[in-house]
């Protein structure tokens, strides 16, 4: 007769089910790791393309919004000037965020997993 290990409280644990749960969790973690490892490394020509145009585009949008504001309110040329500086600031912010993402890497996965890690 097989001796089943007994705990002092509660129902006796099912070692096979526990093993199955641990296997499932390990497989999920392995799958998440390999998926992230397969991703192409950041940086390179693609990243340069993404960042290079951000500053110019933000400047254009800032100038355009300033110009539209000027047309409706009639505060030429202050709308353009304010739009210029806001556009510059927005462009720098965009570049800073993208570069931060490159140099510091993506944030650790915390949003996808709902359960806590016990081991």
């Amino acid at each position, binding site marked *: 007769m097989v001796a089943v290990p007994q705990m002092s409280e509660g129902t006796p644990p099912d070692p096979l089910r526990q093993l199955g749960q641990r296997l499932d969790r390990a497989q999920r973690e392995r799958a998440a790791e390999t998926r992230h490892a397969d991703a192409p490394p950041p940086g390179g020509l693609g990243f340069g393309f993404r960042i290079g145009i*951000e500053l110019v*585009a933000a400047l254009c949008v800032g100038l355009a*919004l300033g110009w539209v504001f000027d047309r409706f309110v009639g505060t030429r040329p202050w709308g353009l000037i304010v739009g210029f500086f*806001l556009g510059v600031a*927005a462009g720098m*912010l965009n570049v800073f965020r993208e570069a931060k993402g490159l140099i510091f890497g993506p944030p650790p996965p915390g*949003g996808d997993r709902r359960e806590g890690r016990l081991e």
Partner: protein
Amino acid sequence: MASETSPLGQFTIERLVSLHIGSLDISYTNSALLMTIVVVLITALLVGTTRHASLVPGRLQSIAELSYEFVLGMVRENVGDADGRQFFPLVFSIFMFILFGNLLGLIPYSFTFTSHIVVTFALSLFVFLFVTVVALIRHGIRFFTFFFPPGAPIIMAPLLVPIEIISYLTRPVSLSLRLFANMLAGHTIIAVFAGFTVALGIFGFLPLAFNVALLGLEVVIAALQAYVFAILTCLYLSDAVHLH
């Protein structure tokens, strides 16, 4: 605007079939012809090769399967598993459309429809509006808290919020401008150096060699620009779904 022989002459739109509805010009142009060819080619590749799919794929079926898996992996990794599944058809269509459009434009005497700002702006405006609508549907009124970054002092709000709004509105502009500028610049330089090749006579092999290298680089840039457009679409979708 540009004469037929200038380097910018390759971008002129020609009406192949003139159609008008009232005062609206809906002619079938060379740009529309290339778009039709691209769509037919993509559909033929995907549907034709997987109709009698074999377990060990042949070459064309491999291309179809690889492109499918590549975009699926990209969407799953950047947007998330469950949400990525929903947005996969959109990202896949955009990626294949731009990729095939860029690549077919490299064929001599062909036309690159992505080298026109109206085409790229239409695509990127669609992506921008789609992402904004998705965010509004998912998060409702809390969508507007995106423009006030957490952890910033409330006194800086009148300065930070316009900057964040401009930063958000930059997305369609940068998305379209990037693709447009790269395609326009690449094809213009190729045309300019081709003109040099003819003009220099016996020494024309020098700009010709440069053109050969540049054409190779343009193939890489064509694929890379399609990839950058698709991955930025995924990132904006992930922003809309998660971080708002």
